[in-house]
């Protein structure tokens, strides 16, 4: 993946929509993988810790592939894209940057497993639908990456769906916690679904299908799952309560995350680490 630029000159009219889409894809995966990496060592049991970490690694690997596509388009090198951009330049959905729960990842973490399960399951399903659409993207390098990334999503989905269904079916305290997490996730899920101000251009240039088509597909896919566990979710439940990350609106959680994740990088961004 070193020469796509020369292979396919990008039409100046397409480029803004294309880079906007790539930033969303890369930033979404990157920040969620970061949140996943904070969970390392703190999952409900050791076996799950190991499994969850693989998913976080896969997801960060996907982010790296999307950042590489941006690098190929002349947006800067992958590590500066991941580490050096300020919050206002980030295009990830706000839902994915929110902390795992109260407390610091090194001392007092009281992370919320229900939130982890719901956020990851709902997101991975949306990611799967998005990537299925990207397999037909007219931007060939992106279609190729989508094909590869897609391969690993089957496991991610199976994993999170298993936890989701089981904890929902457990009833009692688990059900209460899960329903609270579902409300929290849906309140910002519109922010995951949206493709931002250039969504129309993206569809017109054949980069990805229209936002609403993807949204309906997500609702349709989730419907039988929700029905099987007696959960009523309607389109109106999806909101963007804490801001639209696609236009650079973010929470203080992202600022804190960026400070941590770039702490060593910022000692000397030019150095080789």
């Amino acid at each position, binding site marked *: 993946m070193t020469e796509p630029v020369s292979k396919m000159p990008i039409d100046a009219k397409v480029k803004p929509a294309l880079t906007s889409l790539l930033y969303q894809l890369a930033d979404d995966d990157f920040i969620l993988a*970061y949140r996943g*990496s*904070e969970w*390392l*060592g*703190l*999952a*409900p*049991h*050791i*076996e799950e*810790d*190991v499994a969850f*970490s*693989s998913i*976080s*690694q896969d997801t*960060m*690997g996907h*982010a*790296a592939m999307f*950042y590489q596509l941006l690098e190929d388009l002349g947006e800067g090198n*992958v*590590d500066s894209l*991941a*580490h050096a951009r300020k919050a206002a330049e980030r295009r990830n959905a706000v839902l994915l940057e929110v902390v795992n*729960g109260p*407390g610091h*990842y*090194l*001392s*007092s*973490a*009281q*992370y*919320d*497993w229900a939130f982890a399960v719901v956020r990851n399951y709902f997101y991975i399903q949306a990611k799967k639908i998005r990537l299925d659409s990207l397999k037909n993207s007219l931007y060939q390098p992106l279609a190729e990456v989508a094909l590869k990334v897609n391969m690993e999503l089957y496991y991610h989905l199976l994993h999170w769906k298993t936890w989701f269904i*089981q*904890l929902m079916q*457990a009833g*009692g*305290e*688990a059900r209460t*916690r899960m329903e609270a997490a579902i409300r929290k996730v849906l309140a910002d899920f519109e922010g995951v679904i949206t493709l931002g101000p250039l969504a129309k251009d993206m569809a017109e240039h054949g980069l990805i299908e229209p936002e609403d088509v993807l949204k309906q597909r997500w609702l349709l896919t989730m419907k039988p799952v929700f029905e099987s566990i007696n959960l009523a979710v309607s389109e109106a439940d999806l909101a963007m309560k804490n801001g639209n990350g696609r236009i650079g609106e973010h929470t203080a959680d992202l600022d804190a*995350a960026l400070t*941590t*994740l770039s*702490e*060593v*990088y910022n*000692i*000397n961004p030019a*150095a*080789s*680490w």
Partner: protein
Amino acid sequence: MSEALFFQEMTEEQKYEQFMKRINAGEKIEADDWMPEDYRMTLIKLISMHGISEIMGALPEKEWVPKAPSLKRKLGIMAKVQDEMGHGQLLLRVAEDLMKPLGKTREDIMQDLFSGRLKFHNVFHMEAPTWGDAGLIGWLVDGAAIITQTNMLNASYGPYARALKRICAEEVFHAQHGEAIIMALAEGTEEQNAMVQDAVNRWWEALLMFFGPGDASTTGTSKQDTTIKYRIRTKTNEDLRQDFFTKYIPRVLSLGLKLPDETMHFDQDQELWVYRQPDWNKFKDIIKNNGPKSQERLGLRRTAYETNKWVREALNTAN
């Protein structure tokens, strides 16, 4: 067969004799086999401490997982710390099977950790304040762990030997992951060089302690004779420490790093490394959970375990 004497008919001494004969012949003991109580208890102590040390060992490195300075390093250290959790999984499974006849489970192991009954390795009580420490842990702490773990690859207890085989295969990656970080720093800016040297200075004493006291006279307890008798390991603590010096001192020096012990040298006549003894009283204190980070890390482990309790309770019905 001449040993047609059925097992149930044997006296305890005969069983013990047969057991020793088996392990001395290089046979492996399995979880369901008869074993002397002393052997079982020695294994439980050794393996549960080894296992819980892997789990607690994930914590000093965990700090650097989200902070690693590039995508590649972030991925590498995530995979490395994941492996350590995985080692904990393998070893605790082995320990849990040994504890089963005593009616103990993983729950008891966790509670023993929290109450201080179950100890973890001295190195994992220490601070890791810079990225240099993250590299040094992978390079030298894992290096030391490789030396002690390969020494038990032929352990008489089959399940432990098999777990160690898996673990040591992954340790090769850990060592190279650590070397890669250290090498980049050693070849980097002055500030990066200083990071490695500081880390070496900070960890040196803990690394010497890692292998345990030379003999029981130093700290009052040492299980090394028992583990050698039962063919769980072959070399003594001091043998292992000397092996570590032989393997790693030339590499440390070749990168332009200095050892924080000016007395350190190889004595040609004795064919031994001569070095300044660490403070063994400090060692005893550290493993009693009085190290600089002992309480914070135990606190994190305990909080996580309790915060997630509802998950384990929700799914605890057999189905």
